[in-house]
């Protein structure tokens, strides 16, 4: 059983124990929390989107860590898609930011609060 695992990770070093996985997950969680705080705190639209990208990053770290833990490449594949989506989202977000900036000449997120109840 163990040599099956050993052979299976032909490109990977020894199997990762759970606690090491936990180390990576903690890092990912901290980065995610920092990104969330940045999103909630900053008012500059572009910085806010950067913080969302930071959250994507955190997710990516978590995915790769799990991929390594489970000794397959599914997580890495998923990160490719995350990257794709992040890119698309960044493009759209920045286009919108540009438009908004043109309308009001400001990047202040609290400038757009007309849709209130």
């Amino acid at each position, binding site marked *: 059983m163990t040599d099956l695992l050993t052979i299976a990770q032909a490109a990977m070093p020894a199997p990762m124990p759970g606690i090491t996985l936990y180390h990576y997950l903690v890092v990912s969680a901290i980065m995610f929390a920092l990104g*969330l705080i940045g*999103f*909630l705190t900053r*008012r500059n639209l572009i910085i*806010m989107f950067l913080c969302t990208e930071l959250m994507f990053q955190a997710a990516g770290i978590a995915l790769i860590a799990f991929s390594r833990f489970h000794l397959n490449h599914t997580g890495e594949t998923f990160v490719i898609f995350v990257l794709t989506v992040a890119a698309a989202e960044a493009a759209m977000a920045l286009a919108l930011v540009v438009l908004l900036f043109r309308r009001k000449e400001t990047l202040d*997120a*609290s400038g*757009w*609060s*007309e*849709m*209130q*109840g």
Partner: protein
Amino acid sequence: MNGMIGSMLMLGDAAPAAAVALPAGPVAALAVVGLPLLACILTGLCAAFKVKSKLPAWITVVSLAAAFVAMVMVYQSVVGQGGGKAHIVHAFEWFNLSWGEGNGQRLIANFSFYIDSLTCLWMLFVTGLATLIALYASEYMSHDVGPGYCRFFAAFNLFVFSMACLVMADNLLLLYLGWEGVGLCSYLLIGYFYKKPSAVAAAKKAFIMNRIGDLGLALGIMLTFVQFGSVEFSVLFDKVRPFIELAREGRFAEIPMSVQAIALLLMVGCFGKSAQLPLYVWLPDAMEGPTPVSALIHAATMVTAGIYLVARFFPFFAVSEYALPTVAWVGTLTAVLAATIGMAQFDIKRIMAYSTVSQLGYMFAGLGVVSMEHLATMSPDQANVALAAGPYHVFTHAFFKALLFLSCGAVMHGFAGQLDLRKLSGVLWMPGWRIVGLAMLVGCINLAGVPFTAGFFSKDMILAEAFSNSHTAAIGWLLLLTAGLTAYYTFRVYFRVFLGPKHYEPGDELHAHDDHGHGDHGHGDHGQARAVAPAAKHDHATHDFHPHPPGWAVNTVLATLAIASILAAGTYFIKWVPGLIATASTAIPVAVHAGHEASGHAAAHAHGTILGMDPHAVMYYVSGVVGAIGIFIAFLLHYVGRTTAATSKADALLPYMGPIPRWAQNKWYVDELYEFLVRVPLLVMAHVFHLIDKLIIDGLVDAVGLAPRGAGWSLRPSQGGVLHGYAASMAAGLGLILLLVMLVMR
């Protein structure tokens, strides 16, 4: 032959499947009931086809005359040939329900008619008077030709049909149907001038007060059914005989309370329908209706329905210890009260209305003073006479009261609605008014009880019975006093209105009734003119107004009624009514007693006396003297030395009598008392419930609506429009969920 045809034509079951099988009656009885109904339908069709002639009146008169003729045939058959015993005529099956085999689990109430001599007595004068009054109304209402005319006669016919159902009913349910029907028609006809608020109010008052009485009647009917298991007269009269035996010996304690209560409950209905204390206040207000209505319904027929019920159910009243005394006392007190009020009124129709209430009190007293114990001391003939006093007064009163009302109506019609006796005088001497004046005189002498008139004889029978029963002497004295008052106020009216200097002022309906035949067009125009220049109209009126003497129809009817009233006196001598009573259901107590006559009860007289003398012998003289005193006082006060219409010597006496005349004129404030006791609390309750409805019930509904509004209001701040706010809430939500998961996993 009538009986054979009747039995061949009967539909459904012959007689009710009860213990008593009564012979079949003449089929002409169906005509008596059916003809007014047919006339009602036809006049209703006249209204639908917008007939503008007097056709409805002729239809009515012809149908009612035919009904009268049919009634005479029925009389011949039932009383002449059948000996006055009860006959049943079956029209169709109405209620035939059974839900078990035991007692009280079968309800049979068919459209059958119970015809005995009492029925014949009643129906004769009902149909006769209805015919005459319909003829009178054909001219009286002629200014209203059109839909109103048709409506009047349709309601008129419906009334006669309902009255026929009531009087000829074979069971309590059909009687109740007729009872309600006459109440309905009374409402329709009092409120005939529906554009007048006072008329509408009077109609509502009449109906509502009748309903109060009807509750008692309904409860009485239910109690009857519960107690005896049937509502049919034939069964009931058979089942009450054992109780009559007990009552004759004064053993009321052995008669179950539920049986005694039946009469008490029925009594309440009678008081409502026949306008006795405390439910009489609707009758004077009912004078808002047209005069023919007042004459027919509120003088001669509908108000006698209560007395008919007492007479018909006399066996039940006899077995109830307190019913008959209550009836007597209520009748007496009503008589006195109404007489005092009548003395102080100025509207002649109102005076007549109060006199009707007073005379109805007489009739109730006449039936109430005859108790079983008292009957036990009499011979059968004397007992029949005693029982006949009330019904006989009903009979005579119907004629002369109708006559009085119709005369007043003729006066009102001719003087454009003027009814105030301070504004009319000397009408007898005006051209064309001779017949009216003489007819009114005939009516007045009957009402006052001038010797040898029908009214005199019938009133005397009642007075004699009151005095001859030693327990009811007080009633006798009160009734005697009332007789004096009656004579006074009756001749007050006559001396003021018909005699004395000639003077007249037109009444309020000057422009409405003056130009006959102009109808609505004239009415509309003058209605506006009235609002614009009243002063000018008045001048125009006093200069140009001429009284309008009645036409041939009115005069014919008045003359007929006067003659009938005079002839009715003759029935006294032939003891016609006592003869009828002898075979009616009313006389069941007497029949029961008859078997004991031989044992010597007749000898033990415990009669009361009047001033030490035998009542039957001296009553005529006593009441004649009392009546003469009353007429003489009226003569002194209202005829002698009267030069104007407005005042008389009576006015000089007013200051010495203090506030009493004013109280009497205000009807002793009874209406105000009812307003205070009944209407104000109900109004307060209505306001309270309105508040409850608005605040609590609507408030609850609003509160239910508040919930979504509140929810929305509280959720609104979360939609601030600020991006960070939304992000923070999302993050917070995520954190909370994770916390929850964490705690749950622990």
